[in-house]
């Protein structure tokens, strides 16, 4: 069944989008990630213009992180104060990101920049995860107990000034890295259309030493607001949010996430991480190939001044 997307101005198949949303929702439920980093490249592969894929991806991320954050709030695994400080940084980063986004679009370099960011970030994160999970798999196979790397209790981050106490996270840490992390995620959110959970979660655990149980809830909490803000600003400055597209993805996504979570419980942690790493790397490689292959049309047209 075909449907015409009002903002993207192309006809697409409803079931392809629902399936895309469900598949990504399934994976996000299984691996505990937002799925924005998969949705946006998938939309680009499906010929949705990158600018619209990014803004709509941000919109779609709100739905999955909102429903995730609700359950963490109920369980009390959400640090509002830490989330609030991250959010303050996120708003600044997102505003900067939107400005860069509009500038790149005017210069005609937006598509390239989005692809490059995806290739670099997904390649790095996917590569690191793959190495880590393969090592873990090998360790369990050889029978040795997995060695948990115990990094020093205090690193350079804990020597920074302007300390603040976060009770729910049992943390006493400078606000500078927290704001900085929030800003970086906000920037990526507005340029890549991702929630940024795949960077936020490891950063909170390894850099700020936030207890693992509050990390996901807090990360989701901040992602709701950063991506809501990103969606609003994209809607007002670039008019690139396609609600029809976002809704189809969300509808598939919320359903798929629940089944994914169930399936995830049956797989072992290292296997899950290895699979996710392979998936992330596959997306990165596919995007990288497009950068190097001679495009069918060397020339492209775009409106001047209008967008």
């Amino acid at each position, binding site marked *: 069944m075909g449907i015409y997307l009002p903002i993207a101005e192309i006809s697409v198949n409803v079931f392809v989008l629902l399936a895309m949303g469900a598949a990504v929702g399934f994976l996000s439920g299984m691996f505990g990630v937002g799925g924005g980093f998969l949705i946006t490249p998938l939309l680009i592969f499906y010929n949705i213009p990158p600018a619209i894929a990014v803004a709509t991806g941000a919109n779609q991320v709100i739905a999955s992180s909102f429903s995730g954050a609700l359950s963490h709030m109920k369980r009390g695994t959400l640090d509002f104060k830490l989330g609030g400080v991250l959010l303050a940084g996120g708003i600044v980063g997102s505003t900067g990101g939107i400005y860069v986004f509009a500038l790149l679009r005017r210069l005609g370099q937006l598509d390239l920049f989005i692809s490059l960011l995806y290739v670099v970030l997904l390649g790095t994160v996917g590569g690191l995860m793959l190495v880590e999970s393969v090592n873990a798999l090998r360790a369990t196979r050889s029978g040795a107990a997995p060695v948990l790397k115990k990094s020093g209790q205090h690193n350079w981050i804990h020597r920074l000034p302007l300390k603040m106490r976060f009770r729910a996270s049992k943390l006493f840490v400078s606000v500078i890295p927290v704001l900085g992390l929030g800003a970086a995620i906000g920037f990526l959110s507005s340029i890549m259309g991702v929630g940024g959970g795949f960077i936020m979660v490891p950063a909170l655990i390894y850099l700020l030493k936030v207890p693992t149980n509050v990390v996901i809830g807090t990360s989701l909490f901040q992602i709701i607001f950063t991506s809501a803000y990103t969606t609003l600003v994209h*809607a007002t400055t670039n008019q690139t*949010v396609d609600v029809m597209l976002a809704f189809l993805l*969300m509808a598939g996504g*919320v359903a798929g996430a629940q089944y994914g979570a169930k399936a995830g419980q049956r797989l072992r942690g290292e296997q899950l991480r290895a699979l996710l790493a392979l998936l992330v790397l596959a997306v990165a490689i596919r995007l990288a190939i497009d950068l190097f292959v001679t495009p069918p049309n060397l020339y492209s047209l775009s409106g001047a001044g209008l967008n």
Partner: protein
Amino acid sequence: MAGLRTVAAAALLSLLAAGPPAKAQAPLTENIQIGLSTDNVSITAGFSGADLTIFGSLENADPLVARQGRYDVIVVLEGPARPVVVRRKDRVLGVWVNLESETFENVPVSYSVATTRPLQDVTDPNSYKQLSLGASNLYLQPADAEDSPATIEEFTAALRERKAATGLYSENVGGVQFLSQNLFRATVRLAPNVPVGTHKARAFLFKSGLFIKESSAQLEIRKSGFEQSIFRVAHDYSFLYGVFAVSLAMLTGWLGRLVFRKD
């Protein structure tokens, strides 16, 4: 939707009036008229292109010339003009990057031509240039006229090529047919991605290769339907639209949790 039929009955009357009594006078110059049955066309979201028919008439046509087929008509449907940036990708360290670009002012978004005969048989290239007529002769004004002529020429050609490839610039040879000595019918193509806005239909009359007269009419193309309302709201009330998009996402997230709750 797109079959606009207007028969200009006036043509027949004027022919009768110019009959026997005018014998002694010098032959009147020919005139051309076109008419549209409506001044606006609505297309829906699923629009996949259509043919638009425009009727027109020749006044004071010389029967002899008409019999010999030496009258030619070119009809153009020209979309609204907008500035356009043409960009060229080049390889930088193996990666394809948009490097050079050229901005053109007032480029018609669409340009469909219908002719009685192939363009090269109607008149000479110079006349086309002077009239700025035909997709390949249409004058495209670069925003920065100081760029080298070779660059401007290259990007102008690329612009025409891209427009033709997307069906926005089209040529329909034989699209204008004389139904009688005075009456003609022109069929111009509307591409699926035809832009909304004010389009201008223009008819050019040639007699034995010489340009005689031009006539024009305006046509408003609008999109209708639910999708178009969304588009309009997104552009006219973009902040409210953003708030709606965010609320819809939260509502979906919340409902999804209610429906599929597992904890």
